[in-house]
């Protein structure tokens, strides 16, 4: 299992969905950080302690986009990816990640 700290290893201020939204966008986090880790380990744990922003456009693109863009099967993502936090204020974002994954459907075009 690999644990990644979002704030320390990506950015404490993630925001935006696409590359033209800035350096710390959801698509970049998903494709350049998260997916390469899935090739190295069976389980990847994302620790969100210390983030100052976690807007839904970023968070949805990370989790929902994973399934929508067919980067990984939904069931596989649900079993191999985990979001954890020790901060009570951030607990709802753990549930939000799960619901984004659960609600997403693969795009028919891609």
């Amino acid at each position, binding site marked *: 299992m690999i644990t990644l700290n979002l704030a320390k290893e990506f950015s*404490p*201020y*993630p925001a*935006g969905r696409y590359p033209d*939204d*800035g350096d710390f966008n959801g698509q970049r986090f998903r494709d350049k950080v998260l997916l390469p880790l899935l090739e190295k380990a069976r389980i990847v744990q994302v620790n969100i302690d210390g*983030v100052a922003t976690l807007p839904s*456009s*970023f968070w949805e693109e990370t989790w929902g986009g994973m399934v929508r863009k067919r980067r990984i099967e939904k069931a596989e993502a649900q079993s191999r990816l985990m979001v954890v936090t020790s901060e009570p204020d951030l607990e709802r974002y753990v549930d939000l990640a799960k619901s984004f994954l659960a609600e997403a459907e693969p795009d028919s075009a891609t």
Partner: protein
Amino acid sequence: MKYLSERRRRYFARKSRWGLLPRRSTTGADKVRSLALAKAVSKRDFDAAVELLPAVPKRRVGEERLIITTPPSHLSLSENYEETLAFLMELRRSRAGPKGGLNRNVMRQWRSHIEMADIKQIGPAAGLVLAAELDSFRHRVGRMTSLDQTWHENVRSFFADSGLFELLDVKPQSVSSKPAVGPLTKVLKYRRGSTPDGQQADLLRSELEALCGEKFGPRIEVNNALCEAMTNAHHHAYPPDQVWWHAPPPGYWWSTGAWMPETGTMHMILYDQGVGIPKTLPRSSHWASALPILNRLDPERTDAGVIEAALELRRTSTHISGRGRGLYEMAEWIDQTQSGFLRILSGKGLVTYRPGRRVQRSNLRVPFQGTLIEWEINRGA
């Protein structure tokens, strides 16, 4: 000759149908004509809106090629909406040159002067929109100077506190200033950007809390609300295929925070000069999901109804793949904390969202130029 006359015949045939059935452009000349038509329609709508507003005193000094515009004494979108908007639209018109055209050379030959000395008071939201207009004006024209030694002390201190002199790259003329009079408003330095910026959002919130010594709201949720407002401005406010009759806006968002100690009111504001939510939602992929909500909320489909439908979109729709949450997330923390309100002014719509999902909507006579999003919390005097 035969070719030219055939083109001319086609031109008049198409011209007779303009406005009824736009045709797909096939040649460069067609594209130029379509663009000219779109600009004319956009300018006609702008002029029609200006006609409904009080006239802005303006005079031209021909020998000096100078246009002098007189603003209202109280710039406020909540207390003096129409006069304030009329002045702001006049500023926008002046970006297009003295004849409302787009000729940069003609613009450079004329100079604009705003009688800033006539302004006695500026509200934080109106101040932000004014800053955006002046900032865009500066982008277009290049250089501005100020006669701030003649200004009212409230306006001078407002410009100094909000960092407007620096934002506009203007050197203030007066070194000493009298303190502001009347109800005190402390304003954070204005900032601008074009993409969502989490660090700026966090800084804005923390600076506002430091200014008033109170917590504005839950840190992450407030930051997220600001980030989503920035993201919406970046994704939707300035569609690439939009035709502007005046110089295209630079594509920024502007934001600030304000604190009124006498009433204990804190504001966070974000503004963009884009086409507005009522125009962008019908063009988005969420329109099909928003339409049933809009038909239920406001069968007349007014601008305020469209904004409310956008706010309701995520809460009531569970099948839109998590997208379309932007506006909902801006209001979410108001519900969590049960305090304050969110106000969205866009197009002709004004929507206020209060705790408990109480939404109040009204439609204005004249469309606002852009989208203004304002969160207000009252902590008591």
